[in-house]
């Protein structure tokens, strides 16, 4: 999709053990009163990345971002940016800028005064400030609105002003706190791509906080999924989606069918699982050895399931059920299938042909099947 070209750089620095991280978060903990907002987080982020902190509300992602900005002080741990310890450096002395969720545009200043604010604090010459502000306004096509006050702008315009204001000082690192949350869906999708474009052009390292997994997948080079102050998984969008590290990650990113079962046998990478809730045995690919009897959860994405009216050729990973509900979404259709055991399965089918009537409908019996390598097994 919109993966920035620079990030697709062949080396992929996080795979290279010799690469020097640009931002090094070292065992950082933040305690508010008695609650651990951020709990022992260690994270490396590399130059030029578009990194996403993804998680539900209250997972500590915003607190972590505010500690990077210097707006909160870690209770313990260190934060290094470009090799310098920034842990106790106040926000105004950091080579870091932040774009706020509320945009925090100064209501008493015009657009250009807002953008110039950061530069004026650095004592640049008048002409230089003028030139840079104009360049930035040009970048987001806001030149005609330079003399407007923030209240005279639309939501999308404010968002762009907030972005260039935080870019004006040419920070080494740009922090974005839910930058698109206040926009409506259509504008948000458009802006996601624009954000990636701008990041490529300015080449700054971006760290963005979001609760929207689709947004995170669209823009980022890597994603860190956070839960209860801890990082559950760090990886590229594809690896986090296809190889979730835990059931929580699997369920947080995209929809998933979770099937409970017990290991009955393992031959090499092939794991045989007996599931009461499914009423049959499953065969899944799993690299780590698991002893017999281990309770496990199998996670299979809805689009990995195949639905057919006739029994498929394969004998394992096949169940029969009745369609209880379906939704036609245009590009895809979602079916809810109830198995005789009561387990509900979610199936997503791509609508390849143009149709006026769905081939599958309520109360119809269907077979569901999937391949051994199309799901993930978690010991529960």
């Amino acid at each position: 999709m919109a993966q920035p070209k620079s990030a697709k750089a062949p080396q992929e620095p996080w795979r290279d053990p010799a690469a020097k991280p640009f931002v090094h978060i070292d065992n950082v903990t933040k305690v508010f009163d008695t609650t651990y907002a951020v709990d022992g987080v260690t994270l490396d982020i590399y130059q030029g990345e578009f990194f996403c902190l993804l998680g539900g509300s209250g997972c500590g992602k915003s607190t972590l971002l505010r500690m990077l900005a210097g707006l909160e002080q870690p209770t313990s741990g260190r934060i290094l940016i470009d090799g310098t310890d920034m842990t106790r450096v106040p926000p105004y002395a950091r080579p870091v800028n932040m774009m706020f969720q509320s945009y925090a545009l100064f209501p008493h200043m015009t657009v250009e005064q807002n953008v110039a604010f950061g530069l004026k604090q650095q004592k640049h010459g008048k002409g230089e400030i003028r030139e840079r502000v104009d360049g930035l306004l040009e970048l987001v096509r806001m030149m005609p609105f330079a003399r407007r006050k923030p209240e005279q702008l639309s939501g999308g315009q404010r968002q762009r002003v907030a972005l260039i204001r935080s870019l004006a000082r040419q920070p080494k690192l740009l922090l974005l706190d839910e930058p698109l949350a206040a926009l409506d869906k259509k504008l948000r999708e458009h802006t996601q791509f624009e954000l990636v474009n701008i990041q490529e052009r300015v080449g700054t390292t971006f760290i963005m906080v979001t609760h929207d997994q689709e947004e995170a997948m669209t823009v980022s080079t890597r994603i860190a999924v956070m839960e209860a102050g801890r990082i559950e998984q760090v990886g590229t969008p594809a690896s986090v989606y296809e190889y979730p590290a835990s059931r929580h990650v699997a369920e947080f990113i995209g929809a998933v069918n979770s099937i409970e079962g017990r290991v009955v046998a393992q031959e090499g990478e092939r794991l045989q699982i007996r599931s009461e809730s499914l009423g049959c045995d499953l065969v899944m690919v799993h690299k780590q050895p698991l002893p017999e009897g281990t309770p496990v959860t199998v996670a299979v994405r809805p689009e990995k399931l195949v639905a057919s009216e006739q029994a498929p050729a394969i004998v394992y990973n096949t169940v029969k059920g009745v369609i209880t509900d379906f939704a036609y979404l245009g590009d895809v259709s979602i079916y809810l299938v109830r198995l005789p055991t009561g387990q509900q399965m979610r199936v997503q089918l791509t609508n390849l042909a143009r149709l006026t009537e769905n081939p599958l409908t309520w109360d119809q019996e269907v077979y569901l099947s999937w391949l051994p390598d199309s799901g993930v097994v978690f010991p529960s």
Partner: protein
Amino acid sequence: MKRRRPFLLFTLLAFGYAFLYVPIISLIVYSFNVSRLVTVWGGFSTRWYGELLHNDQILSAAWLSLRIATMNATLSVILGTLAAITLVRFGKFRGRTLFSTMVSAPLVMPDVILGLASLLLFVTMEHLIGWPAGRGITTITLAHITFSAAFVTVVVQSRLSQFDISLEEAAMDLGARPWKVFLLITLPIIAPSLLAGWLLAFTLSLDDLVIASFVAGPGATTLPMVVYSSVRLGVSPQINALATLIVATVTLCILLAGWLMHRQETLRRRAPVIDIS
């Protein structure tokens, strides 16, 4: 909603406004009365305005009151703003309850108590440390600040509590040191409430008879004290003229403020929000 209810409601509203304004209007009308008898209409005249402008006692009292009111308002705004910042921004600290009690009590404390208490304080202070020496403009101003600062605090507090903290964070993030953040961001944004607080403190001081009577020395006579002694002797058309001037000034100020706000509104409307992207 039912149709009949608003009718009763608006009758009451109209009655309320009539109640508030009939006395003021009668004051204004009779200030142009030629007759000394304030309530008998003898014809139109502006002679009382002329006499008022040549009444040295009233003029010098007014000048004293204006000076006190200005000093009081300025110092009250500083003190009240600090108190408001303390209440809104500093969360819990030792002695907060006592502090917020001391801020809100002057709003309602009867004038006679405030006046007596302030006077006894000044007398005791003079006795112990020799300051303030005697009573007059200084003691009146000090006593006024204590209660007008409480009003300023309420006004500024309500604005400050709506203040979006992320504006200050953004400024600091963009490289402004905390004191510059206050000067460039916080102060300009809360400025209207400071102005409102200043005007309120100014009016409260200009209006006060009781506290000033307690703490004023023989040399200092404020405008309300002159008005009071002349009113005690009976009605006087000069006081009507003075009242008219005060009402006119206040109305003018409010109309000006209203016009300025209206103009800003139309300027904003004239630049419609168009997203050309």
